[in-house]
């Protein structure tokens, strides 16, 4: 249970980090919080020859709450974003999801951007990036590029980042006025990997649902957004057909079985969690009219 030997690099700038990544190529891995990477190294599921430790890179530790979005740097720890009042006011979904990310001690160290770059199907924050239609900012030797969730996530634990690219920030766009959100997941112990999780964003205008969408944790390979506006649009939150929405969710998700739950159980769970978070988000949207959450 000890990592294999590696060469430690401690760049001080993004340019330096990208240079090192380009030099070491496929044998390199970026270390930020390390809360997913270090268990993998300890168990020797991976043994990269070079770790590019970005913890001393200047300028990556900021949360910026802007007019259109919340921008989160690559060294912002989950706990910092969770407790950031400005980010909560702009996008309550961030805190709603972050309190479900592992345990406080893990959130004190792990980073939100790292969790997204890790692209675990059981990760909460990739699902949030998808639901907000966010952007990953990647720096590489050819400059920076902005990547949508649909392009970023290629498969479980697989992204489109090149070997010499570093995810320097993500942006979570704010929702339109009249939108509220909710998040729920079910795990065997709070903080463990969820058997299923659902994030919902529902927009209510003049008492009527105009938009409803969900994204998922642990029941899809890559974070996907399911648009339920066709099922729920035009209804009032009090008498929307949540059961019909849950049925569509059960048809959408593709859970796998493991020792903790069968695929059928997870499918049922995803439907039930979706029913709850959709109703909760719709109710919040109806009662906080005009606000952005």
């Amino acid at each position, binding site marked *: 249970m000890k990592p294999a*030997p590696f060469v430690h690099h401690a760049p001080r700038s993004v340019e330096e980090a990208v240079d090192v990544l380009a030099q070491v190529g496929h044998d390199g891995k970026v270390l930020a919080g390390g809360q997913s990477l270090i268990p993998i190294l300890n168990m020797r599921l991976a*043994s990269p020859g070079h770790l590019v430790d970005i913890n001393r890179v200047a300028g990556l530790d900021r949360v910026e709450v802007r007019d259109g979005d919340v921008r989160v740097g690559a060294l912002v720890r989950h706990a910092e974003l969770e407790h950031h009042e400005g980010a909560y006011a702009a996008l309550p979904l961030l805190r709603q999801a972050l309190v479900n990310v592992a345990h406080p001690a893990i959130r004190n160290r792990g980073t939100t951007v790292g969790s997204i770059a890790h692209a675990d199907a059981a990760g909460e924050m990739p699902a949030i990036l998808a639901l907000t239609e966010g952007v990953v900012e990647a720096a590489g030797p050819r400059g920076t590029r902005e990547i949508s969730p649909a392009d970023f996530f290629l498969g479980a634990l697989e992204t489109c980042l090149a070997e010499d690219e570093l995810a320097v920030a993500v942006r979570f766009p704010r929702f339109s006025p009249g939108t509220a959100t909710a998040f729920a997941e079910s795990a065997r112990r709070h903080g463990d990997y969820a058997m299923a999780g659902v994030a919902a964003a529902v927009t209510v205008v003049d008492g009527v649902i105009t938009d409803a969408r969900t994204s998922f944790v642990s029941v899809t390979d890559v974070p996907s957004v399911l648009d339920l506006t066709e099922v729920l649009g035009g209804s009032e939150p009090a008498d929307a057909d949540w059961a019909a929405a849950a049925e569509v969710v059960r048809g959408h998700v593709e859970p796998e079985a493991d020792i903790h739950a069968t695929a059928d159980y997870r499918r049922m769970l995803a439907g039930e969690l979706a029913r709850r978070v959709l109703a909760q988000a719709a109710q919040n949207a109806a009662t906080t009219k005009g606000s952005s959450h």
Partner: protein
Amino acid sequence: MTDMTTEQLLDVTVNVNGVPRTASVPARRLLSDFLRHDLQLTGTHVGCEHGVCGACTVLVDGKPMRSCLMFAVTAQDHRVTTVEGLCDAPDARPCATGERMNPVQQAFAECHGLQCGFCTPGFLTTVTAYLEENPAPTQDEAREAISGNLCRCTGYQNIVKSVLRAAEIRTERLGEDGGEAGYAAAPAARHTSSSANGGERA
């Protein structure tokens, strides 16, 4: 794989319990092993070594983190408090044996919050930091606060009681101190002369 005999060694300095400590270690040295093997601070226990059990939890710049999920080199120049450092807190008091205990240690002793004691260092550090954040938790909050730490002996009931009792003791001692808060607000008296930056709060 890199040849073991030529493995790169790095001089790592970490402020541990108010004292700057340096050792020459390979880059892959986990903070938990740095504390136990290189500094002989064996109070920090290593259970699962992949972040699940919480036994190795230490405070890094006052915040609980898993020492098995950090490399010593990444802790360079940071402030680490282990279970050995908890008795240095301003609100620690001498107990019957003459040793000092902070309110959480005192409460675990009073409430039988441990049996074999293997998981205890992780609980003590976790709860000490938690009470700074929430000085008067409810029973449900206390249970949630320890959800990231596993104990195979107690069944948790007495640990929850210990958290609530620790909050009481802490509040009592705060009154005695004239309001000075924080286990890490000042370095221990016996470390003061050698402490470079032990009093800093991150």
